[in-house]
């Protein structure tokens, strides 16, 4: 029997029906039409399905859709503000930190989560934070540089806002 789930997705209230054993990733991609989060491994190893659930990043393939009842979900689709890309997105483009792009939504959601909690992470901390996101095309160097430059840009922006 389908279950009714009420949740907030990227700031908007969204209600949907799901099977009890359906994952949040399936509900997002299927019922809600948000196909940014990807299913890579389906076992929590690759991070391509990373979304924010009540402010913490999780693998949406390892969340049952009914668990999202009353919770706040944020996906890659909510990262840009209209046509204004987030600094992490912009720096991924600048650095060419992607080839096939399959892992990119997960990396961007995870990197943004890191920079919101630590505006100036060391490369060591950054690499450990992103260890749950796998890329099989670029190698990680360009991704790490993109996140570092996004961090610098965000710090500068924050200083500008404060001044």
């Amino acid at each position, binding site marked *: 029997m389908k279950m009714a789930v009420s949740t907030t997705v990227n700031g908007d209230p969204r209600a949907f029906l799901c099977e*009890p054993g359906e994952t949040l990733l399936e509900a997002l991609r299927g019922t809600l039409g948000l196909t940014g989060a990807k299913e890579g491994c*389906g076992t929590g190893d690759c991070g391509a399905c*990373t979304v924010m659930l009540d402010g913490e*990043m*999780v693998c949406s393939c390892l969340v049952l859709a009914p668990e999202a009842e009353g919770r706040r979900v944020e996906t890659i689709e909510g990262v840009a503000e209209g046509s204004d890309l987030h600094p992490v997105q912009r720096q991924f483009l600048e650095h060419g930190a992607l080839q096939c792009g399959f892992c990119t939504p997960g990396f961007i959601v995870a990197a943004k989560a890191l920079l919101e909690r630590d505006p100036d992470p060391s490369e060591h901390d950054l690499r450990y934070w992103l260890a749950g996101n796998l890329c099989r095309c670029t190698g990680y160097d360009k991704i790490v540089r993109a996140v570092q430059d996004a961090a610098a840009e965000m710090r500068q922006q924050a200083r500008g806002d404060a001044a």
Partner: protein
Amino acid sequence: MSTMTFHAPATVAEACALLAAEPGARVLAGGTDLIVQMRSGRIAPAAVIDLKRIGALSGVREQAGGFVIGAATRCTALKEHAALAAAHPGVVEAANLIGSVQVRNRATVAGNLCNASPAADSVPAMIAAGAVALIAGPQGARELPVEHLPQSPGRTALAPGEFVTAIRLPGKAAHSSDAYQRLTPRTEMDIAIVGVGAAITLAGDGSCAAARIALGAVGPVAVLAEAAGAALVGTRFEAAALDRMAEAVQAVCKPIDDKRGSAAYRTAMAAVLARRVVQIARERAGEA
């Protein structure tokens, strides 16, 4: 189409009633093992009972001089609890070696214990720290030291209808601390081929007053190496005492031999890690 049902009870009593009513039900904490097993078809629970809506099971509480970690508490929340991290740094570091940040934002130490993997990182650390599992069930509540809960890979001592509601750890003790280390073929996102936890209490003169050493991934279940701890008690951690401790560690190793680590390598590294964690726990205890 599966006929599985999903429940999100608000109380432990309600969860017990749901489990009693449906013998094929499974409790869901973080889901990082359960959902993987469901998706792979290894298990097909008739019902899933989510513990995360039971307020009493989320978060860390300081209670009766100890710490009670609710079964639905994510591993990353342990780091955020300053008093717990100060009292049991080994348990907190072990819980935060599991998987990735994404996984640790969901995974729980109670789930890590009940999944009963021989290589569960938090389990040797909890055993060393003297953790006790608090259990609810149809016959009422009971407690079981963590080392008695896993019975074999994937099997626990929980009776039908029972589930772990919390893990209790002792409070902060003077001159006492712990540590955990593991060895993995990769740096991150890998499964231990050996893991060792140690909890050390020092006497006023710096000698060893008490020691508990526990091993993971070198047998079908994590074990408390009692003789290894006993080899340190009363000593000042002299080389001979550490040698006896390491020998006692190796004596309880009965590892599998596989592509990730040969039995001989796992056994040799168990002794290396045991020396390291004893040293770290001892230093921490000296500062505690």
